[in-house]
Structures are given as C-alpha cells and as structure tokens.
C-alpha cells in the first residue's frame, strides 16, 4: 500500500530529492506536475483558511448579537471561550496543511459555523433561563466542542490513510455492537426521558455510545460490503423487473434489521434504529447497485415500525403526536404533542426573517437546546436562517457524496457516502420530526444540538471525510481487494 505520489509531493517540499524513485526522470512533465502539486494544496488550504476566518467571524458575531439581543450588554467571557474554539479549529486547519493538504476545503468551515451557531443558540437559551457556569449547557457544549475538535485532530493525525480502517472491518463491527449494548448493562446504563441510550459513571459523565457506534458501523458496513458485494449483487432471482437476492444473502440485512428492532424494543429509540437501518440499506444499494435492496429494506423497516406502532405504546404515542398534533386531547396528554406544537409555534413566531438573535422566545419550547434546536434557530433566524442552515448541511453532505464520486477505492467511496448519508439522514429525521414531516424521534441535530457524544461523533466524521478526500486528490486509483 505504498503511496507514490504523496511521497513525491512531500519529498519535494522536504527537499529529500535523493529519495525520489528513478522513474520520475523519465517523464518530461514530472517537474510541471510536481509544481502543480505544490501549488494545489496551498490553494485548497488557503481557501479553507479564508472560509474558516469567515466562519469564526460569524460565530463571534452571533454570540455578541445574542448578548445584545437578550441582555443589551456585552459579556466578553463567552467571546473568549469562543475564541478558544476558533483557535482549536485553526489548529486543525494547520494540521491539515501538513497531514492532509489536499483535503476538501469546505467541510471544516461548514462544521465550524454549524457548531458555532449551535453554541450561540444554546447560550441564548441559557441566558433566558438565567443559568451560568457549569450549570449552563453552553459552557458544557463549548467544552465538548473543544474535546470533539481535539478528537478530530487526533484522528486526522493518527489515521494517515483511511484504508487502514479496512483491515479492522470486523473489529469495528464488534465494537459498534458492543457500544450499542452498553446502555443495557445495569449500573452504567441510564434512561433519559424513556430512552435507554445513555451510559454514565456516577453523576459526572453521560455519553450516548450510539453516536460513536454509527461511525464504527459505517466503517464496518463499508468494509463488509466491499468484501461481499459480489455475492450480494451477482446472484439472485429475477422477479418483476428487478433482481432479488438469494435468501441466504439476506443474512446481513436481517441481522441489521434485528438489531434495529432490538433498539426500538429494548432501548426505546426509534431514531437510532431508523438511522442505522437507513444507513445500511443505502450503503448496500450503493455497493451492489440493486434497487431490490432498497425495497426489501424499506419494506422490512416499514413492517417492523408498523408492528412497533401497534404494540409499543411509546411508538404509538409518537405516531399520534405526529398525525394529530393540534388536537386538544393529544396536546394535553402526558407525553403528548405539547413540545412539538410549542416548537412549531416557535418556528411560526420567527416567520420569514426571524425575531433576531436574542429577541425571540425559544426558551418556551421544552428541550429547546437539544431536540428542538432547529425550532429555536428558526424562531430567531427565521425561514431565511433555516434555509441557510439546511443549505450548509446539504453542501456538507454533497461534499461527502462528491468524495464518493471522485474516490478511487471502493472502501473509501462507500465510507464517505455512508458517513455523509448519516448526517443527511440525521438532519432529515430531526428537522423532519420537528416540522412534522415524520414522527419525532430522539436523535441529535448534527453539530447544532447540545450534547457531547454527538459533537465528538460528528467531528470524527469530519476528520474521516477530510482524510478520505485528501487521498482522492493525492493518490492514483488503488483498488482495495479482499
């Protein structure tokens, strides 16, 4: 798994001319190519730096506007904390200049601005509720952001080549399943608002292992599918106009389906189940090119969700809250649609242009810092702000899928698409839940919502996408074979 072109590029920078392979001198264009490679990384990283400075400026201004809007005064403490985060992000940028100079220049600025807007909105609600210090979710969110960005830096430095991950496919699979089981372990499992998806030690740290598990699963799915796609796609019976897989090849999808259903039944977490199952189905489709997988996947999840809705009261309640949110009985019921409707009132209150940061009343919505963070942002930034944020997400996801298009190795392609798709699916599940496109389930809105595990997981996704994107621009096609 040598990486010739990279050696060449860094070799030129480092002046280690003697190490160059002899064939370099055969080609006339070698010097030109080397020169272009020298310029290219600078161009990408400079573009990233400019966007990053812009993103950090937006974040600082958001915090100042929140303070002016909500209290009418400026408190520099939080601005300093925000500046600390900016410094960390710039640190990540500097790392990229050395370890992944050709990485996608948009991912980092988008993640930065989303994270910053989330911090600003969480801080805004802390102000409304009059909490500060460690009681304030914003302080914790900033701390977690720092941890998450540091984690991203570590990943980008340690994982020098994403193809390393391919070697540990099954290890990642086992790790993911272990993480998912952790909340069910007595003693460390925690139940929060009905969903048993947390682990904690004492009263100190609580963490949602499912967030990390989604990354491990994406790696596992990518590796597994690259290894087995031939048997999954080549054989099977043709029915109607589609080719359906053999029964025994249905094994993996049944395992993942069973896992998802177990999460719904034992952990009361429909969102995570939907996320994992959606992720797996899409990756399966991308790797095999069989539309039938999508049909089987959607059908199986539909049947499972239908029976869950019939038998599990919490699922049934979610569906009722979704379909009949405004009826007085559902609104007033315990665990009814009160939260959802308050979130919608918040969005409506924002209207087209929003109330302005610090000037709305997002704190009236329960869970306004986590599940309903988009409703909070929509209230103060308006439809215009929501469109901008959704646009940023769409751009982020499209950069990920672009890596899928451009990538030279199937594992990298699949991994990038899978990771990007988790972000897209999570945004859809959360924003769609808040705006009544689908029943609301308890996931996190990537980068925005208060919650440490989610931030760490999403910044690791950023790091992995940066890593994969770097290899596209650096290396020639290198087929990974099992």
């Amino acid at each position, binding site marked *: 798994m040598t990486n010739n072109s990279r050696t060449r590029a860094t070799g030129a920078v480092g002046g280690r001319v003697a190490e160059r392979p002899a064939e370099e001198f055969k080609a006339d264009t070698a010097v030109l190519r080397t020169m272009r490679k020298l310029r290219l990384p600078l161009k990408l990283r400079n573009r990233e730096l400019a966007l990053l400075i812009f993103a950090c400026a937006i974040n600082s201004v958001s915090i100042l506007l929140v303070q002016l809007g909500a209290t009418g005064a400026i408190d520099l403490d939080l601005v300093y904390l925000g500046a600390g985060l900016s410094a960390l992000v710039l640190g990540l940028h500097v790392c990229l200049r050395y370890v992944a100079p050709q990485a996608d220049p948009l991912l980092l600025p988008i993640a930065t601005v989303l994270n910053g807007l989330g911090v600003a909105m969480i801080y805004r609600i802390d102000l409304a509720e009059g909490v500060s210090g460690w009681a304030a979710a914003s302080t914790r969110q900033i701390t977690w952001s720092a941890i998450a960005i540091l984690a991203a830096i570590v990943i980008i430095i340690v994982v020098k080549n994403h193809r390393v991950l391919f070697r540990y496919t099954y290890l990642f699979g086992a790790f993911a399943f272990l993480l998912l089981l952790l909340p069910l372990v007595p003693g460390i499992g925690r139940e929060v608002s009905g969903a048993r998806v947390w682990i904690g030690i004492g009263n100190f740290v609580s963490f949602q292992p499912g967030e990390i598990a989604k990354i491990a699963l994406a790696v596992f799915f990518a590796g597994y599918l690259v290894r087995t796609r031939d048997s999954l796609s080549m054989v099977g019976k043709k029915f109607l106009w589609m080719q359906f897989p053999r029964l025994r090849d249905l094994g993996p999808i049944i395992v993942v389906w069973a896992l998802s259903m177990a999460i719904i039944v034992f952990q009361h977490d429909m969102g995570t189940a939907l996320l994992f199952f959606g992720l797996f189905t*899409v990756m399966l*489709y*991308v*790797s095999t*090119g069989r539309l039938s997988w999508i049909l089987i996947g959607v059908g199986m999840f539909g049947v499972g969700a239908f029976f869950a809705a019939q038998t599990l009261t919490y699922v049934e309640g979610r569906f009722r809250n979704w379909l009949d949110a*405004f009826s007085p009985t559902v*609104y007033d019921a315990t665990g009814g649609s009160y939260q959802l*409707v308050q979130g*919608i*009132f*918040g*969005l*409506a*209150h*924002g*209207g*087209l*242009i929003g109330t*302005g940061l610090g000037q*709305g*009343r997002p704190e*009236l919505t329960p869970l306004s810092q986590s599940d309903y963070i988009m409703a909070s942002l*929509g209230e103060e930034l*308006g*439809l215009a702000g*929501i*469109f901008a944020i*959704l646009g940023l*997400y*769409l751009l982020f*996801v*499209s950069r990920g*899928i672009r890596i*899928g*298009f451009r990538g030279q190795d*199937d594992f990298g*392609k699949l991994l990038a*698409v899978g990771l990007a*798709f988790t972000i*897209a*699916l999570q*945004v*859809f599940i959360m*924003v*769609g839940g808040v*705006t*009544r*496109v689908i029943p609301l389930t308890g996931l996190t809105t990537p980068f925005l919502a208060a919650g440490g595990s989610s931030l760490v997981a999403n910044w690791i996704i950023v790091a992995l996408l940066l890593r994969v994107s770097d290899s596209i621009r650096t290396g020639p096609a290198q087929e990974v074979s099992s």
Partner: protein
Amino acid sequence: MNRELKRVSVLVLAMFIALFGSTTIIQAVQADALRLDSRNTRALYDSYDTERGPILAGGTVIAQSVRTGDRFVFQRQYPEGELYAPVTGFFNPTQGSAGIEQYMNDYLSGTSNTQFLDSINRIVAGQAPKGAAVEVTIDPVVQKAAFDALGDRQGAVVAIEPSTGRILAMASTPTYDPNTLASHDSQSVISAYAALDDDPLTPLINRATSGNMNPPGSSFKVVVAAAALDSGKYTPESTFANPASLTLPNSSAVVYNWTRTTCGPGETVTLAEAIRQSCNIPFAELGMELGDDALREAAEKFGFNNGFELPTPTGTSVYPRGLDDAQTGLTAFGQYEVRATPLQMALVSAGIANKGTVMAPTLVDRVTGRNLEELKSFEPQVLNEAVSEDAAAGVTTMMVNGVEVGQSNGARIEGVDVAGKTGTAQNGEDEPYSLWFTGFAPANNPEVAVAVVVENDGNLGRHSSGNIVAAPIAKKVIEAVLNK
C-alpha cells in the same frame, strides 16, 4: 457505483426539499394561523414588548399605552374609560380583551400583515416595536352628549351618519371603567371582572349592539310603513278600519291602541295618521295584509337577522320566522318575538334618511402606522337598497309629522325638521317597558340618525313612554350633531 451515487444524491436532495417545504409551510404559509392559536403564548409575550397603538376618536385619545417598570413593560390607559368603554373594550396582557382592543388587535399590536414591511424596517433601523393607531368614527362631542343624556338610566344610544354608516356615538349605561380590567394585578382584575359579571345591570354588556335584546315596539312601525309604501300598494293616505279593539284571527289575543280607544274619530284611519298617533290596530291590520314574509324581507333589508362586524361583532336583531296571522299582526308594531338592538333601529332610520339605501355600519375610520402612513381606511359600503327613494320620502314625511305634531314630539327641535318614531314596548304582564326612539335630522338633509333604548321603564314605572324618556335623549344627541 456512480449510477447508484447519483440516485442517492437525488434521494438526499428529495429529503432536503421535503425539509425546505415543511419549514416554508410552517414559517410562511401557516405562520399567521399558528400565531392566532390560543395555545401560542409567544404572541402574548410579544404584546408586552410592543407599545400598543393608541385608539383615537376625532383627535381625542381614548386608549393609550404608558410605559411602566413592571414585566409587562406597558400599561394600557383609558383617559375617559367609562364614556368610551362600549367602543374601546379593554386590553389586559394576561386576562383577555374586548371591543376594538380585541378586534383590531392585529393592528394595535403591530402584527397585521400590512405592518410586515414596517417590522422589517424596524429591525433594520433598530426601533422599538410599536403598533398602529386606530382612529374610530366616534365623535367625542356626540358621544358625551349621548352618555350624559342617558344619565343613570339603563339603556343605550347609537348615532350614525346616514350617508356613510359611520357610527358617531355608541353609548351604553350602566358602563364600567376599563382601567380596572387593564390592571396588571391579575387578582384585582379577576375580582373586578367577577363583580361586573355578577352585576344584575350587566355593565359589561354593550347594550348598543348586543345584550338582552329589547322588542322595538312602535319604533318598528317605520319598517312596516316603509315596506307598505315600497310595495306600491299603499300610500300615506291608504285607509284602515278603525275599531277600538281588534281580536286577532284564530286567537284570543286582543289588540288595543295605547289610548284604549279608536285612532281618532272616523270609521277609518290613514296610514299617516296611524304613525302620527302611533296606533297599533291599523298597523296590525296592515301587517296581516302584507304578510310575515313581506315584513321579514323588509326587516332583513334593513339588517335584521344579520350580525355586523364593526369590526367588533354585534348581536343579531330578529324578525321571527313561521308566523301565523295573529303573530304577524303583533310583530307589525314591534311586539311578539321581534327583537332589535339600538344599532339596528338606528340603521332603519339611517336607511330612510339616506333615501332608502342602508349603509353598512362601521366603527373604524382609519388605521395609521408609526410614521402616520395610512395602513387601512374604511370606505363607505352599501349594505342594502332597502326601499325605493319615493317610499323613503313618504315615510320621512310621516315621521316628521309624528315629531312635529304627533306622539313623538319629545324630540322636537325649534327650527329643524326632525323625523322620528317612538316606541314603548311591553316585555310581559308585569315586566317594565322598553322605551325607544329612532329618527334622524334634519329631515331634508340628514346629518345623523339616532336610536335610543331605555330599559326598565326609565325608572319611571308604568307612566313612562318612549316619548317621555327616549325622545328627549335622542333630541340632545341630534342637537349635539347639529350644533357643531
């Protein structure tokens, strides 16, 4: 693999388009409806921060917001609260609102659609939120005259400009002080409201436009006479049999004139004379000849069986359905189940005054924004062409005669032709009378149409009548308009 990636891209795009769509529906399409949801407390909290626009009556401030130090930021004040309570209603940040305060709330609170651009300008310019000013049609001088003339009686006055439908006065007594209901001390507001609500004299009810409806009595004869002349089959000189009592067909009910004798000497009596002397028997005969359908049609053209939005909604005056001859005879002089508000009876006079055309009543002239730009103005609107110009002219002559030398002379004003009709309606055997006057002046060029109702005999017992109690009140209101 790239073909699949394209399809996944399309899927992702479709997911995001769904989100763009759902947020647009909530934040743009349904936003206004969601704001109005009673469970949405945001609009309420917003109202605290907004300097609510004032309510003005001809340059007089009748409701305004004053800055306070408390959490509601502004306190609503009513400088002459009792006088204007039927118009303004009240506004309380937590306990609800009524009247113009309630029904023009969008403008007053600055949340109406026409104020959208203003709110953008405001955000850009960093100005404090401020509602629009609502200018009502009420003339403070006429309003004061009506209120003072009612005095401590239990009743109401409505004065209308016949050519436009603008309401110049809307007084209702006993009244209440909206300041007591606008207080930010919830407990005191709740107990004040409960006390007003329990008061047997129902001060919270605006008797001018709703409340416990009174039978209009003889004042309804204006409608019947107009219907008769409009039909073309009758003139003021048409004659009717003139007995001292009339037993209604298929009924034991006996109708008398208020004098308990015949309506003047002679075997027959003319329509004009029946109006002048306010005789019931000729009208019972006329009503039965016309039939209840014709009477109902005429009444509905004047606005009966129909509520109005001033924009404050009004009660519905009633001309009943499915009547037999006896009942029709009783309704012809405003008894049985006929019920009317003073607003409705003022509209009857206004329609006659405006040559048979009834203009839709309105209480709001104009809404102006913070920079005095006009956000909304109310143009006069025709409600109905109730009767022909000739019929209106005939009724006017008879009404003028009734005030000049007849049973409605309590409203006579020296040097001015006043057209009018009184009413003394029975509410039941031992119940007090409802005393009425409706009319307009000057008869040849009407500036104002008035209706007065006084309930509970006007505290005068069985010797009261519309002419003794209600007509002088109307006279003072008319004088207030004409002396301007």
